[in-house]
């Protein structure tokens, strides 16, 4: 792969990518809303050949002791070996955990969901929102695809009915209640190789990049979550530049959120 890194680097010097993209071009993005009937909300997002499905499921459980009047959000990612020849079966490894946590942070820190509205009975019963991420084909940048799919799935999710008398969820009957997604966090991932920064790395580029930074932002330009990955470094100037670009790029993605 070293020879390929040389190729990627020398193309970047000239403002080029191996697949003819410009440095700040995304691959084509496709969005499908609610492809999974059994999920309470779901989305399929494709970025180039990368494909992720995310499903939302609700259940009722007990709140955490420190937030007794708030619903619970649980984000989980399964890197099924179906999606990439290098994924192995078994419990989630570091890559899966990072993917889930970065998506989780974007949603949680943006306060796009009012968790107090998901309280059924303080200290006792709250709605649990499970967001499950499943890559179907990993051709790089699962982070952005998963984050976008998660927001779309949540926005389109409908809560099942809750029987107050019996104190249980009627999983098969839907209410009309949806999550009030006032804000929409959008994650944009930048990669760095040598001194060049580019967006939306595919799998070939991921294999050779030095480092990456994922930035989640809101429509008003506020940054809500970030994650640096890889062993390389960024300068302050690079970071400031990335923040501006992240907000700019997020505008394009936001148009895809239905």
């Amino acid at each position, binding site marked *: 792969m*070293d*020879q*390929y890194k040389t*190729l990627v680097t020398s193309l970047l010097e000239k403002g080029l990518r*191996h697949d003819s993209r410009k440095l700040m071009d995304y691959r084509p993005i496709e969005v499908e809303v609610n492809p999974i009937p059994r999920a309470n909300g779901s989305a399929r997002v494709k970025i180039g050949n990368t494909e992720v499905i995310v499903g939302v499921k609700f259940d009722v459980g007990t709140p955490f002791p420190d937030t007794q009047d708030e619903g619970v959000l649980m984000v989980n990612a399964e890197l099924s070996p179906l999606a990439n020849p290098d994924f192995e079966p078994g419990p989630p490894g570091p890559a899966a955990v990072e993917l889930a946590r970065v998506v989780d942070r974007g949603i949680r820190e943006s306060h796009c969901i009012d968790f107090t509205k998901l309280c059924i009975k303080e200290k006792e019963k709250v709605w649990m929102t499970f967001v499950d991420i499943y890559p179907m084909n990993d051709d790089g940048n699962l982070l952005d695809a998963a984050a976008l799919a998660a927001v779309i799935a949540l926005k389109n999710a409908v809560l099942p009915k809750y029987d107050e008398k019996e104190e249980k969820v009627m999983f098969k009957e839907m209410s009309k209640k949806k999550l009030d997604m006032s804000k929409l966090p959008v994650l944009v991932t930048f990669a760095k190789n040598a001194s060049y920064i580019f967006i939306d790395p595919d799998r070939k580029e991921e294999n050779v990049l030095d480092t990456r930074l994922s930035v989640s932002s809101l429509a008003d330009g506020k940054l809500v979550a970030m994650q640096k990955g890889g062993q390389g470094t960024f300068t302050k100037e690079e970071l400031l530049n990335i923040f501006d670009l992240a907000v700019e790029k997020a505008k394009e993605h936001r148009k895809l959120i239905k």
Partner: protein
Amino acid sequence: MEKLYVSDREIVVPGDILAEGIEYLPSGKAYREGEKIFASVMGMASVKGRVVKVIPLAGRYMPKKMDALVGKVIAVLPGGWSIEINSPYAADLPLAEGTSEYIPRGADLTRFFDLGDYIFAEVTLITETKFVKLSASRRPYRRLRGGILIEISPVKVPRLIGKQGSMVGMIKDATGCEIVVGQNGWVWAKGTPEKEALVEKIIKTIEVESHKKGLTDKIKKMLEENK
């Protein structure tokens, strides 16, 4: 009872009946059960006289004797090299087959092939249980210095090469890259980074559109646009 059930070039899938009667002979990717001959893979039926076979449309590379391969050195051993050949099996390149040069005892083998080097070699032996031996001692087989490795489905290799090497020849001429195509679906290319990336893009286009009409023209156009 003698009957042919498929026409030449018809798409067949595993289990499809191809022919009936002992007159017909199954060849690659076709098998006989009693009087009948069936396809064992998805592919194109081929009928040449009495010989009925299937040309596969998909599948990993399985080594055959005399195949010319592009490989990658994955280990330097006391008696030679271990080579990855884009198949489920790694191949051995014995010391004596590595080069036409005489290699004295205890010589530093990395001088000839180092870890990670690409190599063009020929399959000289394959056992029943698929142990593979290579040779690179005769021209054109050799060490491939620098360059990048490009993958293409092994079943599409003939399309990439073209009639009498016409397709790959056209790509070489237009890009000025050195290109070596292995039957194992690994292609080595060396030139400027732009041209290497272009060769990669063109090979991927051939892979995806190998079955479409006007491919040669499309490739010609891509090459001209990127001059």
